[in-house]
């Protein structure tokens, strides 16, 4: 009991000792500081993880947008070229129409002139005397002839549009470099479709080819784009430049693009270069396509005095080959 009361007394004294309170407050301060520090640490870590996630997401999005932009760009260029081609076709149609009108109207005008002169001379009595009644009929005839002549003249007012002048500008170009560039352009798509691309170049250095670089770039883009789009995941693309005809009379190079993709159904092979044609299996794989790519490709190559043809790939897939002459004939 004595012990108990002394302990109670000790405690009572302790409560009033400043040392005790100092110790207590130090402990509290340390606890508070430690608590704050730990909490700060964890939020900081949480924040930086969140930030990193956000950044990678943004980068992915940017890459995606970039890829989309690239493909949109190519589409735009293709559309522009389509328009140029369509315009040219219209121009040559116009020229043909104008020529038709000019020849036809000329053929019409000669007999019309004969009828008109005859009526006129008859009315004026230069072909002999006629009575007034007969003259009235002759005048009607003259007026009708005049009407036909004015219709013919109106038709002739449709001016001939200048016959199509080539907008192609041919310059010596390094074909190997161009193919390399185009393959590089598609590196994203090639990666995302896990395709293996092999470009087989001749051993020796090739002479520069006279071509419109932008248009041949279009040709290569069309062919390689098709080889990617209509390929299977993890498929192959084989591009080859064949120089075996470089030393022949019609010096030319042959470029072949082979893919291991879906190919073209055998019944539809004859139509691949037709305007607006799309193979039935191609529509399934890629619903959005104009069906003008290969048509334009062939038009471009024909302007270069080259040719393009399609063969079935050895293991399915498609093989497109085209030739480009070393020099363009001077017009």
């Amino acid at each position, binding site marked *: 009991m004595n012990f108990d009361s002394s302990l109670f007394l000790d405690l009572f004294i302790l409560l009033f000792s400043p040392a005790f309170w100092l110790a207590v407050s130090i402990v509290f301060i340390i606890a508070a500081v430690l608590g704050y520090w730990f909490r700060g640490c964890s939020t900081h870590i949480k924040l930086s993880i969140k930030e990193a996630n956000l950044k990678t997401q943004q980068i992915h999005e940017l890459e995606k947008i970039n890829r989309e932009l690239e493909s949109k760009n190519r589409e735009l260029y293709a559309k522009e070229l389509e328009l140029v081609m369509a315009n040219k076709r219209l121009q040559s149609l116009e020229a043909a129409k104008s020529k038709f009108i*000019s020849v036809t109207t*000329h053929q019409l005008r000669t007999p019309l*002139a*004969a009828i008109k*002169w005859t009526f006129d001379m008859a009315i004026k009595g*230069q072909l002999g005397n006629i009575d007034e009644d007969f003259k009235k009929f002759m005048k009607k005839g003259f007026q009708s002839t005049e009407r036909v002549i004015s219709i013919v*003249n109106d038709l002739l007012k449709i001016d001939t549009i200048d016959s199509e002048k080539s907008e192609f500008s041919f310059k010596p170009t390094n074909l190997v470099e161009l193919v390399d560039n185009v393959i590089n352009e598609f590196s994203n798509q090639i990666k995302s479709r896990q395709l293996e691309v092999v470009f087989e170049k001749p051993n020796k250095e090739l002479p520069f080819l006279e071509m419109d670089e932008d248009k041949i770039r279009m040709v290569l883009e069309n062919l390689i784009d098709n080889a990617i789009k209509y390929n299977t995941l993890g498929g192959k693309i084989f591009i080859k430049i064949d120089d075996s005809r470089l030393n022949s009379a019609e010096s030319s190079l042959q470029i072949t693009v082979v893919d291991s993709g879906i190919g073209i159904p055998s019944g539809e092979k004859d139509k691949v270069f037709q305007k607006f044609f799309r193979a039935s299996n191609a529509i399934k794989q890629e619903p959005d396509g104009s069906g003008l790519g290969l048509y334009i490709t062939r038009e471009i190559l024909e302007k270069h005095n080259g040719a393009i043809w399609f063969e079935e790939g050895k293991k399915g897939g498609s093989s497109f080959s085209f030739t480009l002459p070393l020099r363009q004939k001077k017009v």
Partner: protein
Amino acid sequence: MNNEVKTFNLQDLNIQFYKMAKKILIVEDDEFLRSLNAKRLETEGFEVSIAVDGSEALTKLTEIKPDLIFLDLLLPNVDGFEVLTKIKQDDTTKNIPVIVFSNLGQPEDIEKAKQLGADDFMVKANFTLDDVIAKIKEILK
């Protein structure tokens, strides 16, 4: 009295005209057009020669030495543009007036003919033979 004077004047004019009858060469491959034109010009007192194609036109040109030429453009053998070029290149014929009388008539045809030295361009179907006579008189006056 008045009438007499008038008659006398007309006769005088006709005699004068006959004396110096102007020679006109018509180059035209269409037979009917050619005959109508020739008939009309003859009744007007002109001395008319005819050529049915370009090469005949060139021979008649040196033979006759016409005062005026009516030239069609679309002709067999040598075409009208070539005939016109030759007329205007030759010093002995270059001063003979040439009226291109054709059913071509597109701006480029007219421009080309004028550049080669044609004095006028008439589209056959757009004129009557009276207009033709008026044109000749205007050029030869």
